[in-house]
């Protein structure tokens, strides 16, 4: 399968995606909240004044590495290839932090929750961040930064 894309993981991607969607469904139907990681993270740290109760936000955020650790244990390891140039992680991280607050969400809140709700704001945000992400990586490729 996917002979044209030798590195693609369609099955793991779909299964992992299902887990992410189930998690977001639990947050919505259980807690009445959007499973937006940037918003919950900011709330857990007190950077956002409004939003989910802080204990709930913190519980979700703490769950993320716990679940990842459990998956790594069951799968016998998970690949994490960070950019060799750590300045890309530092600068990219700061811009991601600023942008997700200004734009009220990231891949989870807009890309999964809002898109599934057919929210025009989230659909617009997702198209924009995918577009600027593709443009950024294209520039990096042209500039030899990949």
């Amino acid at each position, binding site marked *: 399968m996917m002979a044209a894309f030798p590195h693609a993981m369609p099955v793991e991607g779909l299964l*992992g995606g299902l887990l992410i969607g189930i998690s977001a469904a639990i947050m919505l139907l259980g807690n009445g909240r959007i499973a937006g990681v940037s918003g919950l993270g900011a709330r857990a740290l007190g950077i956002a004044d409004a939003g989910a109760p802080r204990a709930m936000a913190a519980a979700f955020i703490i769950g*993320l590495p716990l679940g990842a650790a459990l998956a790594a244990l069951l799968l016998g390891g998970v690949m994490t290839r960070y950019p060799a140039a750590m300045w890309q992680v530092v600068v990219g991280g700061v811009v991601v*932090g600023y942008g997700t*607050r200004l734009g009220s969400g990231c891949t989870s809140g807009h890309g999964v929750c809002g898109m599934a709700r057919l929210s025009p704001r989230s659909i617009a945000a997702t198209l924009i961040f995918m577009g600027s992400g593709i443009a*950024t990586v294209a520039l990096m490729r042209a500039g030899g930064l990949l």
Partner: protein
Amino acid sequence: MAALVAGAIFGAGLALSGMADPQRVRAFLDIFGAWDPTLAFVMGGALVPMALAWTVQRRLARPVFADGFALPATRGIDAPLVVGAMLFGIGWGLSGLCPGPAIAGLALAPAQAGIAVVAMIAGMALHRLTRR
């Protein structure tokens, strides 16, 4: 408690789907290079249960564990949304990281993910300090 379980399922999903791997995420955005479509499968897989959840939500008076739904109003598309999403995409492409995988990565590659998370917190704090 439900939030902790939901967070753990989310983190497991990120790890299983390869989204905890910044190079794989960046390869999805690299349409002029060695394009890796995995992220599209992740999004597709996540949208199905979430779309079902929204149809159930419309029929529920209140959530199972809370007194009411607290959901963002579907306001119009404004400048902060557009500029914020554009900036987020730039940082996402530069690093291969968005907030979920960075935080989940604390259990997988603590040193590198730690730097990413601190950088994201700094960006969020910068937004708070400058936008009020």
